[in-house]
């Protein structure tokens, strides 16, 4: 059996064994979870703009994002956000809560390996690329900003 044939048959085998994501229910769940998280964010935005009318809109947005990031880390610690993530798929990843969960989840998971090599190192296993691309991209945008 030549290599190519073996690879295709192996890929077919993997496809057969992988857990199938049912298309329509998972799309609906992602829509629902993502939408609810954004609506909760809007709720915090309204609460903060009611109590702190002097702040600029961007500052209120930052406060709102920090609040839902904090809540997500807490829910990840309790093990609740993992349940939401398993149910909601991309609906729990794309909101900023997914970024927050991607930092808190491995840091809790690898706590056993110690504070420095467990929490501090593993914290960035998923969020590292996001921060790296964010910083590099923002510098590129800054260079673009010189010319516009």
């Amino acid at each position, binding site marked *: 059996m030549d290599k190519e044939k073996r690879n295709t048959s192996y890929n077919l085998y993997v496809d057969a064994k992988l857990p199938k994501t049912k298309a329509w229910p998972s799309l609906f769940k992602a829509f629902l979870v993502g939408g609810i998280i954004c609506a909760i964010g809007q709720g915090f935005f309204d609460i903060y703009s009611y109590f702190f009318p002097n702040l600029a809109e961007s500052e209120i947005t930052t406060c709102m994002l920090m609040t839902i990031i904090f809540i997500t880390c807490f829910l990840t610690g309790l093990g609740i956000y993992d349940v939401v993530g398993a149910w909601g798929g991309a609906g729990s990843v794309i909101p900023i809560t997914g970024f*927050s969960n991607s930092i808190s989840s491995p840091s809790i998971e690898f706590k056993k390996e110690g504070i420095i090599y467990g929490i501090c190192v593993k914290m960035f296993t998923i969020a590292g690329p996001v921060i790296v691309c*964010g910083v590099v991209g923002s510098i590129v945008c800054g260079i673009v900003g010189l010319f516009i």
Partner: protein
Amino acid sequence: MFNIWDYVISFLVGGFICFLAQILVIRTKITTARILVLFLIIGMVLEVFNIYAPFKEFAKAGASVPIIGFGASLARGAIMATKEYGLIGIFTGGLTAASGGIAMAIFASFIFALIFSSKTKRGGH
């Protein structure tokens, strides 16, 4: 002050962005880190082409809560700081704008990692 349409539009737009991401997940089996990076870059591109600001005006939290908003604030921070402070702003602007979210995510994760232990392995072994 509390306008119900803000919530409806946040729900619909935020949900739709996650819907698009879920299509990608089903089609390409893309990983979490890649999908976050992809949408972060989409946000930056939207900001550079001045599409993000009107989009956020329309979609409220539906635009700022998804990671797109994070990318857009990084890009906007860098562009604004470049205009204001010149060359140094290229390097300081992005992280300054996003510092609140990153600092809170790292701080809260560290504190809760000290407090809580892993729940996922319970009963597994």
